[in-house]
């Protein structure tokens, strides 16, 4: 028997398990998936929790429900990956798993410890919150419900972060939420970002920056946080700029899993170096990486993991047959951006083409407006949760192509 071992049962790992179970002959292959947590979180939904739009339980389901019956799920921490021995050591019962092929899908997580004074200065979860963790989002919801207003600062510690549009969506939804609560005039909203504009790519930065302005949200670009001063309720940049806050919403440094670092497989942020077009590990040819865990220069997001999926599966199958992998992944990313007041924006881009305006064709449902607010984009986003649980995770056919298309885009 040969073994395909998948590390991580989040969006990427779960999709790989569901696809591979149909591709590999169960008389020849055993598929094992390891994860430390039994709950699957619909991570795009965390954004809605602080504003009471979703409850925490709206974004949780048991991981086991999405793993095929003939895939073995082991709930355990991962101690060490030993690629030279083709084996992985688990914490639980000190199990050792030998593999023929390894898929790393261990994702990325927030590390507030990386910023001085953020986690340990006294303000964490008092007037400093994150919304990238389920408990952070839930505690922020409780806080915002009765907040009387003041100066709210949203700060990104450093790039790259998972879902780079989420901070903007948070700002737009906050503006809407405070309007609904009738306290918008009591709240000053500030966005402090290490980027030189609202977003990474010029045309989207212009549109999104214009929206911030229209909503009365002030932008502090090129702000690289050095520390949080909990006594003065101020964030300070490395070049000594200061921004005072009453309420700080932090998007802390994002890093890959600790086990990647322990195993000597990561870069300076514990992301695994890969070939950005084939998704094969740069160092080991029987190791493949999907989603946030790799260092491909594209967005860290579920939509990207989904667009990687078919390329990754094809390339692994080719490799098993002794064929060269195909350089087919183009960095395709696709995001619905909630903009408040039941409106949304859709952006679609890849390694080479930045988000452009136009129409996104989608049989049966679309077209959706690109880089422009519309109610359809909002409903697209809200409908996506159903598609995620019922189609995407199970490896079903989604009405999106892996490679980006220029159809409908205005250049």
């Amino acid at each position: 028997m040969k073994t395909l071992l998948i590390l991580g049962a989040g969006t990427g790992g779960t999709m790989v398990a569901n696809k591979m179970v149909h591709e590999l002959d169960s008389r020849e292959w055993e598929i094992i998936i390891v994860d430390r947590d039994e709950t699957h979180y619909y991570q795009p939904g965390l954004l809605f929790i602080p504003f009471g739009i979703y409850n925490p339980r709206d974004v949780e389901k048991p991981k086991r429900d999405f793993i095929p019956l003939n895939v073995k799920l082991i709930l355990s921490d991962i101690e060490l990956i030993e690629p030279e021995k083709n084996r992985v050591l688990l914490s639980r019962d000190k199990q050792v798993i030998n593999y023929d092929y390894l898929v790393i899908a261990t994702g990325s997580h927030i590390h507030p410890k990386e910023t001085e004074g953020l986690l340990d200065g006294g303000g964490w979860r008092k007037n400093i919150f994150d919304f990238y963790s389920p408990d952070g989002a839930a505690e922020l919801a409780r806080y915002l419900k009765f907040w009387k207003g003041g100066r709210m600062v949203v700060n990104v510690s450093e790039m790259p972060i998972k879902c780079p549009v989420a901070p903007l969506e948070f700002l737009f939804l906050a503006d809407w939420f405070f309007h609904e609560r009738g306290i918008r005039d009591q709240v000053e909203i500030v966005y402090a970002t290490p980027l030189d504009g609202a977003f990474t790519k010029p045309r989207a930065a212009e549109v999104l920056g214009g929206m911030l302005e229209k909503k009365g949200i002030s932008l502090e670009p090129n702000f690289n946080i050095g520390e949080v001063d909990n006594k003065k309720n101020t964030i300070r940049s490395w070049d000594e700029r200061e921004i005072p806050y009453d309420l700080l919403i932090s998007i802390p440094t994002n890093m890959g899993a600790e086990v990647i670092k322990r195993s000597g497989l990561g870069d300076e942020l514990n992301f695994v170096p890969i070939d950005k077009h084939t998704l094969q590990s740069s160092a080991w040819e029987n190791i493949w990486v999907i989603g946030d865990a790799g260092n491909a220069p594209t967005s860290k997001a579920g939509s990207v993991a989904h667009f990687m999926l078919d390329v990754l599966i094809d390339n692994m199958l080719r490799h098993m047959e002794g064929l060269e992998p195909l350089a087919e992944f183009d960095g395709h990313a696709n995001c619905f951006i909630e903009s408040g007041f039941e409106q949304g924006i859709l952006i679609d881009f890849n390694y080479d083409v930045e988000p452009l305006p136009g129409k996104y064709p989608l049989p049966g449902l679309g077209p959706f407006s690109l880089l422009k607010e519309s109610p359809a984009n909002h409903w697209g986003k809200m409908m996506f949760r159903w598609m995620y649980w019922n189609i995407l995770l199970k490896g079903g056919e989604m009405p999106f192509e892996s490679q980006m298309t220029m159809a409908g885009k205005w250049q």
Partner: protein
Amino acid sequence: MTQDILDTVAFDDDGFMEDAAAWTEEIAQAIAEALEVNLSDRHWDVIKFARQEFETQGEPPTLRLITQQTEVSMKEMYQLFPGGPAKITANIAGLKKPTGCI
């Protein structure tokens, strides 16, 4: 003097050298002067690390990597190269613009 040296070098639209292999220490000196950076030994430690990293990895190093692999702290990087340490380091080291983030 500075301008004479810079005139001999091909830069891209963002002001980064088109050919990293054409870089010399004199060019670095000239770019630094144009950016009003006064190069000390500490600057050179960083610049040399960036060159060496680019030779092996093909990409200019991130700020985090520089502070992990050299003696220079984050705080000092902002003092040495005010405004955008990773970008300015790459610029003076004759490397392409760091892709940064997406």
